[in-house]
């Protein structure tokens, strides 16, 4: 239940984050203005960050605890094991979750703290005086390794959510026999739409459809 609620908080963040990022397709002033707007929230932004961080910590702490209990519940493994219904995603939530965690840490160091790419400090403010997030994203994703790890991270996040999003309803008992298969399908579609939405950004950059707003 705790896992489901903290998971849903993080899912809502992931949706909001995608909607914010997709503004890169509208133009530099949109996404730069959006990011300035977030920074202008000041203490509220930090409150949200702290809230999300707490959700992440609780989500991981509780699931690790549960996963250890689950391992102990079957001390001797089957020699031959065949799954009838359990999906790959549902059986590898800890694996996908931990790789996503590694990705999030890198992603924050890359674009939020900006310590992995020294070029980002050279970026000048845009004509409206906002930090040029647009060009930062373009320069960041022009690196194939950065984009590759991003796509991999997002792939595992989608895998995680293809099970996790519909699991939320089951864990809180918000479904019935008819609704369950529909929620499972909906969850899968939702997860892969997120994947498509997020990966469209590095893809558009690598294809040269989005060019930096300023030269370094």
């Amino acid at each position: 239940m705790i896992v489901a609620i903290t998971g849903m908080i993080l899912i809502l963040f992931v949706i909001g984050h995608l909607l914010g990022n997709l503004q890169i397709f509208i133009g530099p002033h949109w996404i730069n203005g959006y990011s300035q707007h977030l920074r202008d929230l000041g203490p509220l932004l930090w409150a949200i960050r702290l809230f999300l961080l707490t959700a992440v910590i609780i989500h991981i702490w509780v699931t690790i605890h549960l996963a250890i209990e689950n391992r102990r519940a079957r001390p001797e493994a089957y020699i031959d094991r065949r799954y009838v219904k359990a999906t790959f995603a549902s059986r590898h939530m800890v694996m996908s979750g931990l790789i996503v965690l590694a990705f999030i840490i890198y992603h924050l160091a890359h674009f939020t703290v900006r310590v992995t790419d020294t070029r980002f400090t050279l970026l000048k403010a845009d004509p409206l005086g906002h930090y040029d997030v647009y060009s930062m994203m373009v320069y960041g994703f022009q690196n194939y390794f950065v984009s590759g790890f991003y796509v991999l991270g997002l792939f595992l996040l989608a895998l995680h959510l293809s099970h996790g999003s519909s699991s939320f309803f089951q864990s809180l008992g918000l479904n019935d026999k008819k609704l369950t298969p529909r929620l499972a399908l909906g969850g899968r579609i939702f997860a892969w739409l997120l994947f498509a939405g997020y990966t469209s950004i590095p893809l558009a950059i690598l294809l040269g459809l989005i060019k930096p707003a300023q030269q370094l």
Partner: protein
Amino acid sequence: MNFKLKIWRQTNAQTPGKLVDYDVRDISPHTSFLEMLDILNEQLLGRGEEPIAFDSDCREGICGTCALTVNGEAHGPDHPGAVCELYMRKFRDGATITIEPFRVGAFPIVKDLVIDRSPLDRIVQAGGFISARAGSAPEANSILIPKHDADLAMEAAACIGCGACAAACPNGSAMLFTAAKVSHLSLLPQGYPERESRVLKMVRVMDAEGFGNCTNTYECEAVCPAEISASFIAKLNREYARARLRKSAGE
């Protein structure tokens, strides 16, 4: 038909077991899986070897005694159905078949393929009953039960308590069993008085017996011989949340 069998042999809970190879020949396709094991056991007895210990009783899928993992699936490949309802015609001639016990930490192996499923009994003892004196059958219209509830309670009551849900669960969780027992009683008016205490007690004993946690893989409902739906687990979660809330509200 001929088969190569790999069967788990284990003297008792203390000594480690291993898979042992056996050959069975000239088996009729209409032989049931357990009859095939009976034939093998007679041959073993004839050769003066220890027969293979396995559980079975009614052999018509209603008692929930038989419990084998065949080729990695609880109750074998013919779902829904208990392993006693599995026939050799389901397999290819000459196939290799692996037979293991239900592997759940809470179900210790007694011998070979026989496991101790008394943890399930203790879950039921914790609250899977009603305290109302039901007496003889009352006038049918004196307690009105909506058809939908009656059907749902009947579906949950179909659970035969074989433990395949826990055996198939990647986490060794007995949630489907507990969910069926909780739902079946909480849906009917006779079960209302203990509605909250029942779910809290049964879940507490389930955890204490060392079963794992549900991660919603639905592997349990796929192997359940009584076709209990995993939506009963959602109902159990709902009942549990409701009971906890009401308890903390001081009722």
